């Protein structure tokens, strides 16, 4: 009875799935397939070699400090960094005294209970990075977690910052011209073409446009590519300040587990030695 009922139920579900398949197939076979520019011309970010890549990766504090400077002087005009506190900057090589000075360079909103007003004050190491008011087009996301919130995020940040192009003359790596393939493709006013952005047009104008836009203190040449790499590295750090600690701890765990597993294997072989038939006996 159960089997009969089961067979009927199975045939019904399988049948309806197959009807859906046939309907879907007819629709798919009969309609015209229009490819979109977003699908054809969207580009995956290129790999950049960062010091913190791989299981042995370590932060390059000098690079992170350069990246902080790029964030402060360029990105912070529109993007907040709300999950990071100034005190956290000690982890990228600033001293306690330096952090006090760095924090004081920022204006942090503070509610004044006696006047009922929100006033801005110089930041303290205990404060988080302040919110950034923005009134332009688009919606600048908070950058604290951006490298974890995008596929291949660190490379994506670098690729996006260096990937701005002119849609009218843009050709992809195979040499196919965007305008020839999709003559209707347009970048709306106030938007900028960038093949690394999912729909190819974004509201952010290229923020890093000229070498030397940020003056580096350590003598590194501030090319657009260098600045993009540095700020991508800094944002990788803000997204996961504990990454280096995590990888280092991991080696201890894995090392211990290897040792313990070998011992467990030997114990297992030892205990079973008396009862496991040898191959020759079993034959």
């Amino acid at each position, binding site marked *: 009875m159960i089997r009969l009922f089961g*067979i009927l*139920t199975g045939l019904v579900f*399988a049948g309806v799935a197959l009807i859906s398949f046939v309907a879907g197939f007819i629709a798919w076979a009969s309609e015209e397939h229009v490819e979109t520019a977003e699908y054809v011309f969207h580009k995956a970010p290129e790999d950049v070699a960062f010091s913190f890549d791989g299981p042995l990766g370590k932060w390059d504090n000098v690079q992170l400090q350069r990246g902080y400077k790029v964030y402060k002087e360029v990105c912070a005009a529109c993007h907040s960094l709300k999950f990071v506190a100034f005190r956290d900057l000690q982890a990228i090589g600033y001293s306690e005294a330096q952090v006090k000075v760095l924090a004081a360079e920022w204006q942090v909103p503070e509610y004044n209970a006696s006047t009922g007003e929100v006033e801005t004050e110089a930041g303290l190491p205990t404060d988080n990075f302040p919110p950034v008011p923005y009134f332009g087009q688009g919606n600048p996301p908070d950058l604290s977690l951006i490298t974890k*919130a995008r596929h291949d995020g660190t490379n994506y940040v670098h690729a996006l910052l260096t990937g701005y192009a002119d849609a009218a003359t843009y050709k992809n790596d195979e040499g196919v011209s965007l305008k020839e393939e999709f003559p209707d493709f347009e970048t709306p006013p106030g938007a900028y073409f960038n093949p690394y952005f999912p729909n190819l047009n974004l509201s952010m104008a290229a923020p890093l446009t000229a070498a030397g836009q940020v003056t580096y203190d350590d003598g590194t040449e501030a090319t657009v590519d260098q600045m993009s790499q540095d700020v991508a590295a800094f944002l990788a750090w803000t997204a996961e300040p504990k990454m280096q600690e995590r990888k280092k*701890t991991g080696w201890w765990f894995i090392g211990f587990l290897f040792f313990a597993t070998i011992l467990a294997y030997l114990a297992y072989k030892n205990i079973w030695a008396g009862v496991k038939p040898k191959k020759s006996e079993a034959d």
Partner: protein
Amino acid sequence: MSFPWASQYEPQNPLMKWVDEKLPLPRLVYNAVGAGYPVPRNLNYMYNFGVLAGFCLVLQIITGVILAMHYAPNALVAFSSTEHIMRDVNWGWLLRYMHANGASFFFLVLYMHIFRGFYYGSYKAPREMIWLLGVVIFLLCMATAFMGYVLPWGQMSFWGAKVITGLFGAIPLVGEPLQIWLLGGYAPDNAALNRFFSLHFLLPFVIAGVVILHIWALHIPGSTNPTGIEVKKESDTLPFHPYYTAKDGFGLGVFLILYCLFVFFMPNALGHPDNYIEANPLSTPALIVPEWYFYPFYAILRAFTFDFILPAKLWGVLAMFASILLWFFLPWLDKSPVRSSRYRPLYRKFFWVLMADLALLFYLGGAHAEEPYIMLSQLATAYYFLHFLVIVPIVSSIERPAPLPYSITEAVLGKDDDATLDAQAAAKA
């Protein structure tokens, strides 16, 4: 119940004697996972996953209870409290990554445990109750995992909750009020987050309770084994301790190495980047997907696209629930008296087709809802239902199984002297 040759707990220490008289808890443990539980001697590594699943449950409860000490289940601060755990709580990043990846590995282990049951016919009489309780555990785990994924209140948390609770809206007449009642509002918000947190904390202990019943039910007939034939005598078995504690201990080590590789070196590989974006009811992600372990069922849900008598959405919801609930009937759908696929040549072929079908559904559940993925998932879904509800019953009727060994001893050692004795006795009679 146990086999008559099971060794008995005999405490030597006066304190343990005293405890045993008052509350025989050590005796219970001894008989459950100690030397007092005789187990078939031929269990392979596929039989390791039950112990591993129990380990995962304990791991999730421990890390989860500590995470709950730092997490705030309020829609305004849930996301930032998760970041607080990652940044400011001592070893918080480790706890959270262990818990998040622990859920993935829990499901990996559960799937291996279930597929082992499919292959070796573990669901068959006299072990139906173990199987039924196992399906209950799996359903509870799914509910728990789903609600846990909502807690960080990222974009996937929010939209996943919206899609899954939206399924109840497909039920005719009562669907919409039911959905509002479940969520405590028209969309997931603070009320939903709070009740999900409460249930996410409660359900693991319910799971632990059903696990105890699952193990209790297991100890009545005893474990199955790769030959599928029942234990006949003492030479067929070995005591659980030290033989299987040692074997499972090695398996646990291998499991932990794999698990730690993910926790420490690719902790976000199994998650979705969108869940690091705070929940935003006004911005729908391009692709809403559950965690990978729900992909096959999500693929089945999305496979129904045609309004055949009932609306397509309702078909999808019915099929998704049916795809798991049908496991409850498996012991009665498969009437072959032979348990193990080793001796079922035809069933074994279909088992591997099912594995390939599930692998396809795993892939399709995470793919964009576009062609050809939808058409493929429709074919894979059709096979899934045909396999369990049509092929398994028919194969079990028409199949001619291979000859079974006389005993587990014979299967392991190649010969069993009792078998020839029986044959002589039969010849005399």
